Every structure is written in structure tokens, then in C-alpha cells.
């Protein structure tokens, strides 16, 4: 029986000066690299396929399969790009991972690049996390100095260069083709597909783009074997993942566990909802995944379980809201975010998110009518599946799910002539005033 929590990527985080090469190597770091170099590239890809690792950036596409799409008969250079643009509201796992254990990412980059036969890799980190960027820059520099990067790595004959690239503030660059545009020095707007990045990505060359946590999982798979990884998790969602609890829980934070753990189990570990209050709604994987409620405490947090409940596992960003929170206020704020971050390329998203904000803001002030709820759902219908990338789709998730579960609360704003909740009761310091 697997333990409830299974620290692998987080296991280094309490080690003294965990970000340094010396600390990482003292824990066996960079040994998976030699094991990988002793395998053929295709065998490394097969191991990652066999492990069942699925993309940790939200989509859940099998990582090994993504790698196998790189056409090796294409004479152009191949590239690996790490998506470290963690910006999805609620998602906060890659940032502490890169701060506490940057070398596991670097080792993963080397093994992954070797497997897809790339000699150049890029780590695209959102610009707004200065100290994380310092840690990754230093890890790459240390890896060069130790001979883990550069020419003829470990005498294998394999060469790899890594560039750490800081973004400049744009949620849309988490979308992988928009990220490539940013990396090519352009406005971060998504590209039409096909061609897919595997065929024509960075500089129109075959490119693999993977999330930080996906790439950082690779050394453990190579070191311990595909079967070891697959022994954790559920039938179709293998392995471990970092679950990020935030909001109204007693002990918010990062909990690394096999996929399939439930929110009830996680809340037990995290001391429950703060101050003995009730769970009202939560996101399973960031604001772009439809809201769930206290009725969903026991669904397995894997790709299938959350999907069956009408949402998505996403990035395991569990934002927890208790019964002091107005769902309309929460949804309006997310909607304002999507409007702000819409890149403007396609009309359904650019215009649609603007109209969503207008309609929602009116409702939130208690000035609309019940028909506005139908208007909102109609606007969502004109965005979902009709916009250029998933940003528009994501913008509709909180709205349609909140109307599904909390229609009465929208109506209460109309009868109350405004928001019936007191925002002061939701703050982190609200518990200190006691008595209900």
C-alpha cells in the first residue's frame, strides 16, 4: 500500500541549501543522467511512456508520446522548451519547486533533451518571480561548471546548451504556442495549428514543450524505473503530483501525493476548513477548471475522476473557499482577469470576455435581471469552443459552473440589491474577531 503522501520532488525542500549542486548531488542527483546515457534515446522515451507520466501542466497528455511525435527524419535542429510560465490562478507548485530544487529540473531537461535528440533547450520562466529565476540561473551555471551541461556531457558524446529566459508578464504565454512567440521575441499570441510544435515549433523546428513538473519527474522515472512510477496513482493517472491547497484551509501549502487522492483526505491533512467553517466551493485545477462543491469531497483527484465530476484535474490547484465567500464576487474577479489577459487575437475571446464582465458586474451590483443569467450562459456558449485557444474556454468555466451550483446566490444579489456578503469576513485575519 502506497503512503498517503509521497514526497519525491518536494523531498529536497527541507535540505540545507537545497538549491545548490552539492546538496542535490548528496541526495543522488545527476545519477539518473548516467543511467539515461547508458540507454538508447528511444529506450528513454519508452521508459517515460511506460511510466504513464501525463503532462503536469494541466492537459494530461502522455509525456512520452509527445516526445515520440518529434520527427527524427527532419534535418532541422530539435528543441526542448520548458514551460515555467506558471500563471493559472491558484497554481503555485512549479515556483516553489524551482526555488527549492532547481537541479531536478535541470537534470530532467538534460535527460529529456537527450531523448528527443535536442542540443538546445530553453527554460521560459515568467518574469515576475525574481528569486526563482536567480535559483534556476545559478543551477544551470553550476551544471555547466560540473560538466553536466555543455560539450560531451559525462563523456557521452552528447552536447546540450540551456538558456534561461525570463518572460515579461502575460498569462497567455502559458499557452504553448504563445510561449513560443514570446521566446521568438514577439507578442505572445497563440499560433494556428497545424502545424503542431512537434513538427514546426520554435523557429519552425520540431519542438517539445513540457511543464516544469513533467520534466522534473523524468529523473525519478529513469532512476527508479517506469514500474516504480506506475505503482503510484490510479489506473490511467499514474504517479505522484504536487497538490496545492490555498485559501480557507487551516494549513495551506504543497502536498505531494499519488494521483487519485481526494480533497477529503487532503483537507484532513491540512487541518480542515479554517475556523471550523464550511467548505462552499473549490477549484480542482485552477480558475479555468469548473468549480466543484462540498458534494465532491470524495472524487478521486485524477484525470478521470475529476472529469467525470464535470471539471478537470488541471494543475491540482485546489483553491478552497468557505461559506463567507460570495461566489459572484469570486467569479467576477476571475472574469476580469480573463478579460485583462485575453491577447486580443480572436474575436470571441477579446469581445466575449469584455461582455462577460459587463454582465457579471451588473449582476454583482444587484442591478440586472434574472434574464442576465441566460445572457451569460449564451455569451459563454459563444466563447467556449469558438475561441482560438483555451484561454477563452477557461474564462467560461467559473461562470457556467457557478450558475449551475449557485444560481440562487446570483438571484439573491437581485433581491438584495447588491452583494449580501460581508467581504471582511473572508479575509485571512477575519478569524481573529471570534463569535458568530
Amino acid at each position, binding site marked *: 500500500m502506497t503512503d498517503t*503522501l509521497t514526497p519525491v520532488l518536494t523531498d529536497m525542500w527541507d535540505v540545507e541549501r537545497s*538549491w545548490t549542486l552539492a546538496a542535490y548531488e548528496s541526495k543522488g542527483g545527476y545519477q539518473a543522467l548516467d543511467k539515461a546515457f547508458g540507454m538508447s534515446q528511444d529506450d528513454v522515451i519508452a521508459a517515460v511512456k511506460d511510466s504513464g507520466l501525463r503532462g503536469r501542466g494541466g492537459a494530461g497528455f502522455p509525456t512520452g508520446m509527445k516526445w515520440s511525435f518529434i520527427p527524427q527524419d527532419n534535418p532541422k535542429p530539435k528543441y526542448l522548451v520548458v514551460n515555467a510560465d*506558471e500563471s493559472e490562478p491558484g497554481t503555485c507548485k512549479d515556483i516553489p519547486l524551482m526555488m527549492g530544487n532547481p537541479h531536478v529540473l535541470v537534470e530532467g531537461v538534460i535527460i529529456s533533451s537527450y531523448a528527443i535528440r535536442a542540443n538546445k533547450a530553453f527554460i521560459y520562466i515568467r518574469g515576475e518571480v525574481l528569486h526563482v529565476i536567480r535559483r534556476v540561473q545559478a543551477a544551470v551555471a553550476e551544471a555547466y561548471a560540473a560538466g553536466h551541461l555543455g560539450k560531451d556531457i559525462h563523456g557521452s558524446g552528447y552536447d546540450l546548451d540551456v538558456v534561461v529566459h525570463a518572460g515579461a508578464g502575460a*498569462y497567455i504565454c502559458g499557452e504553448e504556442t504563445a510561449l513560443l512567440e514570446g521566446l521568438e521575441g514577439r507578442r505572445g499570441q497563440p499560433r494556428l495549428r*497545424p502545424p503542431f510544435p*512537434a513538427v514546426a515549433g520554435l523557429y519552425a523546428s520540431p519542438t517539445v514543450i513540457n511543464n516544469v513538473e513533467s520534466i522534473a519527474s523524468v529523473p525519478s522515472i529513469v532512476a527508479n524505473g517506469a*514500474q516504480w512510477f506506475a505503482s503510484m496513482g490510479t489506473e490511467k493517472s499514474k504517479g505522484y503530483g504536487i497538490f496545492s491547497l490555498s485559501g480557507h484551509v487551516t494549513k495551506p501549502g*504543497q502536498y505531494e501525493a499519488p494521483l487519485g487522492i481526494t480533497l477529503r483526505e487532503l483537507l484532513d491533512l491540512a487541518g480542515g476548513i479554517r475556523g471550523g467553517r464550511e467548505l462552499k466551493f473549490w477549484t480542482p485545477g485552477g480558475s479555468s477548471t469548473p468549480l466543484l462543491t462540498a458534494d465532491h469531497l470524495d472524487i478521486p483527484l485524477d484525470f*478521470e475522476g475529476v472529469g467525470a465530476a464535470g471539471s478537470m484535474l488541471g494543475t491540482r490547484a485546489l*483553491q478552497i473557499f468557505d461559506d463567507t465567500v460570495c461566489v459572484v464576487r469570486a467569479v467576477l474577479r476571475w472574469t476580469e482577469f480573463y478579460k485583462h489577459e485575453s491577447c486580443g487575437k480572436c474575436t470571441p475571446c477579446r469581445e466575449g470576455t469584455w461582455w462577460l464582465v459587463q454582465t457579471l458586474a451588473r449582476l454583482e451590483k444587484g442591478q440586472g435581471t434574472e434574464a442576465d443569467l441566460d445572457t451569460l450562459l449564451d455569451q459563454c456558449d459563444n466563447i467556449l469552443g469558438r475561441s482560438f485557444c483555451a484561454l477563452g474556454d477557461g474564462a467560461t468555466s467559473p461562470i457556467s459552473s457557478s450558475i449551475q451550483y449557485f444560481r440562487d446566490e446570483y438571484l439573491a444579489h437581485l433581491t438584495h440589491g447588491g452583494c449580501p456578503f460581508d467581504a471582511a469576513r473572508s479575509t485571512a485575519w477575519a478569524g481573529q474577531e471570534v463569535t458568530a
Partner: protein
Amino acid sequence: MSALDDKTMGELREIAGRYPEKRSGLLPMLHLVQSAQGKVTPEAIEACAEILEISAAEVSGVATFYTMYKRHGVGDFHVGVCTNTLCAVMGGDQIFERLKQHLEIGNDEVADKRQGDQYSVSLEHVECNAACDYAPVVMVNWEFMDNQTPEGAVQMVESLRAGHDVRSTRGPKLCTWREAERVLAGFPDGRVDEGPSAGPASLAGLEIARERGWTAPHVPAPGAIAPTPSKESAVAEADTSRAESETIDESSSADESAAEKREAQ
């Protein structure tokens, strides 16, 4: 505003040289010009365009797309209050209101430097900065200031204005905005070893695992291995409602389309 000096021009060329195609250097180059001049100036746009052999309009188009590039100056310490939903609910809205009131400025403005102030401060509300387990979060020059309160945030900006040392809750002593921009351009400042490995919330699960002796499984003996998933099963498993419609495309990599769209969103 004077033109960029020779050192900066040399460093801009150095950044462009890191990439197989030099235009890729534009984002870090714009960070560097902000470090040199405190904002993106018309002169800097011309300089980047000249080095990259693209038009000034193309550089300008990029500089106006990304929110970290400023066409007007910011303070020595740029304070960003997260007002995305979770931080807002946890008190970010109250912190932002309090700071606006205290500094007597609105969003994206610089507070007047008072007599005796060592440094200037500017204020902006920011979107989710990936620190939700430390909500409400304030960023100063893109360093984490975790678990803030309105009063604590006021004291912090006053310490910054007075020139006192202020440390990130999960990082080093705060540097100025222009110094920070230089690091983002890829020129490290030697502060990497300051600050902890992880903050308390980051360690919440690990501490429980340590207490209870929970670990990942020990490495098993070689044995049966899970079957390799087929492309068809991969499509079935991809976690997105767009999968079905988009995979009608016959091209070999169409299978990943829908999944890719979700990646990192």
C-alpha cells in the same frame, strides 16, 4: 533621456547572441533597457530594433504587449498587490485599498518622494503570482512578500521609503527595481544563496510525511511493466473537451492538439 551607453549596447548584443535567432533576445533586452533607463524609452526601442534588424514598430508592439514593460517610470520599489480572486478574498483588496489611501495614489502610479525619503515607491495591482498558499501576497520588485496585512504592508512601504533593509519572506534583501530588471535580463547579482529553500506553506505536506514516516515507494525488483499506451487511448485520456473535435484532423500529431491547448493554462 540620454542614449544608451556603450556598455549597455554591448550587453544588448550579448543577449541577442544567446539565441539561435537573435530576435529571441528581445524580451530580456527590454528588461535590460529598463534596468539602464528606468523604463522603455523611444531611444531604447530604436537601439533594440537596430541590433535585431527589425523595425521600431515591431519592438514597440512587443514592449506594449507585456505588462512588466513600463513606458513611464516606476518607483525604486514597485509594489504589486495580488487582487486575483483568491488573494482578493483573503484580504488583497483591503491591502490594495489601504496602500492607495496611504500613498495617496491610484493604480500604476508613483508616490511622491517626501523630504527625507531615501527611495520612491510605486503601486500596482497584479494578477496571480503563483504563491496562493501564502495569500494575501504582495510582490515588491518581483520578490515574494507572503501573508501580508494592510497594516504590515503600510509599515513595509514606509521602511522602504526610509531606506531600511527589507527582506523578502522567501528571498533576499530587496534590491531596487532597476537592479531586479538586470537579473531578469540574464545578469545574475550574486544574491542566489540568500533566503530559504522553501517557505513554511511549501513544506506543509513534507513535514507531515516526515512525522509519519511516509515516503515514495521503495524501488521494486524488475518485473511486469504497464503496457505502452496507444495514441487512441492517449486521446481518450487527454483531459479536455476539445479533444474530440480537434483530433478529427488526420495529421500524425493532431492527437496532441487539444491537450496542448490546455497545457499550462
